């Protein structure tokens, strides 16, 4: 009986691994496929008949680093994305705290207004934003990209953080207040550590949106000075060389790597319930 139960548990474990493995393969397949295209000679990619054992080539790898300033694009991407997330957090955390905890006239309207900035098509503000940055002399700079990404993501970063703040027991703040803490102290020492998973979640989503942003980046970055990975990708689709599939695939893979590394590094925070044990459990 006991061994039977043990057996069936082993089987269910096996089944679980099989399902998870299949799902992992399904998710990773495009990435691996991209990588395999990127590491093949160009001629092999455009042959119509299937190739089961591709040959390995670093042509594309050398090309993207030597013929294009890919390192600079990557730097631009990383700087613009991390900069925008920092701007978002600096603005969104106090805004979310105010929306979550204070009562004042028009609070809900302000909250809705913040969200509503996300509701229009980005193209509507493309031209005004172009002129705005031209007038302040920020066109074709990473700073402009930072600001634009931050502006695009600010609304939902605020809302995600706000919803996490609403879940924090009010008692925790009351306790800190009677212990002698002021508003900023409470925010810094109590609230932010307690909603860290929310902050991280919002940051990761903001990063993903930012790295995929194309329209505004193309508009603002008119020379390689401010090109990011997403715009650089577009460079491989035209010109006298035609479509350079293996370079596109490799750049796309490279664009995926920074966010992937960030997510791997902080994934344990993504789901960890840090408020556990705060109140009765």
């Amino acid at each position: 009986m006991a061994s039977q139960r043990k057996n069936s548990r082993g089987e269910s474990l096996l089944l679980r691994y099989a399902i998870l493995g299949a799902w992992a393969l399904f998710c990773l397949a495009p990435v691996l496929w991209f990588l395999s295209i990127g590491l093949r000679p160009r001629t092999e990619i455009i042959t119509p008949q299937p190739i089961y054992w591709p040959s390995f080539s670093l042509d594309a790898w050398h090309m993207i680093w030597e013929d294009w300033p890919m390192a600079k694009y990557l730097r631009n991407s990383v700087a613009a994305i991390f900069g925008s997330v920092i701007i978002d957090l600096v603005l969104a955390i106090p805004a979310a705290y105010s929306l979550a905890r204070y009562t004042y006239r028009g609070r809900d309207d302000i909250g809705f207004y913040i969200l509503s900035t996300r509701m229009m098509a980005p193209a509507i503000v493309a031209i005004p934003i172009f002129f705005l940055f031209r007038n302040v002399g920020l066109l074709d700079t990473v700073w402009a990209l930072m600001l634009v990404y931050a502006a695009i993501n600010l609304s939902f970063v605020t809302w995600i953080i706000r919803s996490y703040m609403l879940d924090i027991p009010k008692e925790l703040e009351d306790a800190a207040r009677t212990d002698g803490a002021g508003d900023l102290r409470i925010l810094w020492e109590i609230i932010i550590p307690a909603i860290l998973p929310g902050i991280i979640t919002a940051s990761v989503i903001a990063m993903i949106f930012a790295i995929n942003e194309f329209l505004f980046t193309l508009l603002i970055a008119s020379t390689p000075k401010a090109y990011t990975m997403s715009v650089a990708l577009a460079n491989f689709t035209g010109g006298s060389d035609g479509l350079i599939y293996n370079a596109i695939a490799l750049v796309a893979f490279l664009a995926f790597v920074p966010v992937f590394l960030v997510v791997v590094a902080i994934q344990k925070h993504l789901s960890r319930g840090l408020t556990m044990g705060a109140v009765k459990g």
Partner: protein
Amino acid sequence: MARIELTGIQKRWGAIWGVRDVNIDIADEEFIVFLGPSGCGKTTTMRMIAGLEDPSEGEIRMDGELMNGIDARDRDVAMVFQGYALYPNMSIYENIRFPLRMRGVDKAEHDTLVRRAADLVELSDYLDRKPGALSGGQRQRAALARAIVRQPQVFLMDEPLSNLDAKLRQAMRVQIKHIQRQLRITTVYVTHDQIEAMTLADRIVIMQAGLIQQIGTPDEIYNDPANTFVAGFIGSPPMNLVEGDLQDGRFTAPGIDIAGLTLPRNGKVTLGIRPEDCTVGGHSTQLKGDVYGVEPTGDITYLTIKAGEKLIEVKADRSYRSELGVPETVAFDPARIYLFDSETGQRLR
């Protein structure tokens, strides 16, 4: 150490009343318990003392100094919350140390003070743990240590034991009272548990619907209730309250007939008698009814008798046993009979 005076305190949110009119003078070093059902305004009153709520009307003074409008962080109070409210990201050590850091206590003293407070609540072995790794009772003690660490002028405790099981609650009750006596700090304690109130308090404040019903020592509250609310709230099981007719010192209700009451008044009254002031059996004619229920608990037997339509609860001898429906008589201790106005519920003397 502080004396707390509440004068004409009211609290309302729009049309909703939290506290209607509270006047009380809490002496230095006194242990005062606010007791009442949920929604009676006891927690709101405490939050106003803490500075977490502002009163709509009235004055709060500590040692004569007006506290209205002064923020919680600037009042020298410490509060223990029902849900413990430990900071989840900090270790127990850091939790206890937090008020010291916030109040600018000299850093050199922190360690000594934290360890002394932890010692006092017997939590020294758990200082490096996070709150999530502690049991309910340990969390409660950690919250207590955080409150006592900097020796505030006033302790405020908002139902601190209500999340603990009965056994632990009893142990913590003793500990809280012991620590309060040791530190001699004015303490305001909110609870809906009458046992906690009776065992802990120097004085009990009984509240209902935002109003104080009675203030008194546990003995006064028990022996001399001001109205039917207080009478029915204190005691376990609570006092029996029977509506009946009083004519020339003789009270009658279905199944009940008591003569010799010395109240110069005729008409409808409510008679109150505690289950422990009754004697079962004998030749009494004061109460005649049928046995409705018998509940032996080991040290005592609860007997319920149906007199007319009314169920009367009586504490009988531990060996008392009976069958349902059997006729039974009960005698009342005449000195322990209370009479109340049936309309207002106020005590008649």
